[in-house]
């Protein structure tokens, strides 16, 4: 009787150990396969603040292209007005979607300009580092994306983004943000905001090839990025960014 019990336990141990190894084996396999594929392309975005006219067509097109809920914005346009005294005021009514109102003369304006904003698709994104469930990530082509099926809506990434580019999607209750129109770019199309911009204030392209127009601009021109001190290494570059822009 005693011997049978010992044999049973022995066999049970081996069975459990074996099945445990099999289960852990199936978990680790896809990682190894996927890791071999590595990164494929690199993309960059260029915003020309000298060209933007503040018509807001980019914001309207983005909403339709990406079904962005009302009063949330994946991209928006800010107007900076600097007075003769040096005071700075920023407005962005409805993200600039319906254009901007005329300003009264009492502003005593020294200079004014529009600054379109969107997700910077950083190389070292804070938002991805803080996600506790692996729902936001950098794709193989460098796009910072949100997996809405994994997202639990904790909002850490929204707080972590130094650019305020993320918001809580009120329909899905998950984090949401600009994808640089990942679904369009993978089909060889431009992001919707770039397509509809009437003045070419937004440019987008692959920068793998150093002779591509955008790669040449990034290499030869004096460009700026927003908040470089955060160390996120943003990939949206600005031409003519004023020192007052935050």
């Amino acid at each position: 009787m005693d011997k049978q019990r010992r044999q049973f336990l022995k066999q049970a141990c081996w069975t459990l150990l074996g099945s445990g190894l099999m289960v852990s084996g199936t978990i680790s396999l896809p990682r190894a396969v996927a890791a071999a594929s590595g990164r494929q392309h690199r993309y960059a975005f260029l915003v020309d603040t000298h060209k933007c006219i503040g018509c807001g067509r980019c914001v309207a097109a983005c909403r339709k292209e990406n079904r962005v809920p009302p009063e949330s914005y994946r991209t928006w346009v800010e107007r900076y007005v600097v007075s003769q005294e040096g005071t700075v005021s920023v407005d962005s009514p409805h993200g600039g979607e319906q254009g901007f109102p005329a300003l009264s003369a009492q502003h005593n304006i020294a200079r004014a300009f529009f600054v379109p904003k969107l997700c910077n698709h950083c190389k070292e994104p804070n938002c991805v580092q803080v996600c506790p469930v692996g729902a936001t990530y950098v794709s193989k082509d460098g796009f910072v994306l949100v997996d809405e099926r994994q997202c639990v809506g904790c909002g850490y990434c929204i707080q972590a983004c130094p650019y305020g580019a993320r918001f809580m999607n009120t329909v899905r209750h998950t984090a949401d943000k600009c994808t640089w129109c990942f679904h369009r770019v993978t089909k060889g199309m431009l992001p919707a905001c770039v397509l509809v911009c009437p003045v070419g204030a937004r440019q987008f392209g692959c920068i793998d090839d150093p002779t591509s127009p955008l790669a040449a601009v990034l290499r030869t021109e004096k460009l700026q990025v927003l908040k470089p001190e955060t160390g996120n290494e943003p990939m949206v570059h600005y031409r003519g960014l004023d020192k007052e822009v935050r």
Partner: protein
Amino acid sequence: MKHAGHVIRLAVVLIVLGVAFFAVRSVMVPEGFGTHHSYTYGYFRAASEQEQASLAPVYRGSDKCRGCHEAQHANWSQGKHVSVACETCHDSWQAHNNNTKEKVVKDSSIHACMLCHATLTGRPETFPQIDTIERHVAAKGKEYQPGTTCIACHQPHNPI
């Protein structure tokens, strides 16, 4: 050997817990979830990339419009408004080519033009802007008729 039973029982419990952990994990963790190109930034569900890439584009670009609207496309491509895509003013390709076959948006109101061409603080000085249509018409030495819109003088596809 008197106390071997205790050790074995403990070992069995630990093994059962360990196996249960891996079994639950294999059910709970979605397929393809794990580290891809980078541990810090590439920790995600592999199928998510494909799911997002498969979304249908709404805006299709001006070349797509040429198929049916060749004359308008040819006229537009020779004018100053060539930098303005069809869908910037006419709404998306999909809104026009869905099951209901909505008509192309043709907003000939002054507001549609003024969205870009109204004089506005912050616009580049070189960009053509007008104050009001009344003053613009007067400045051109013509008499303004109430109700006149921009397209009375300017062809929107190929403006002068």
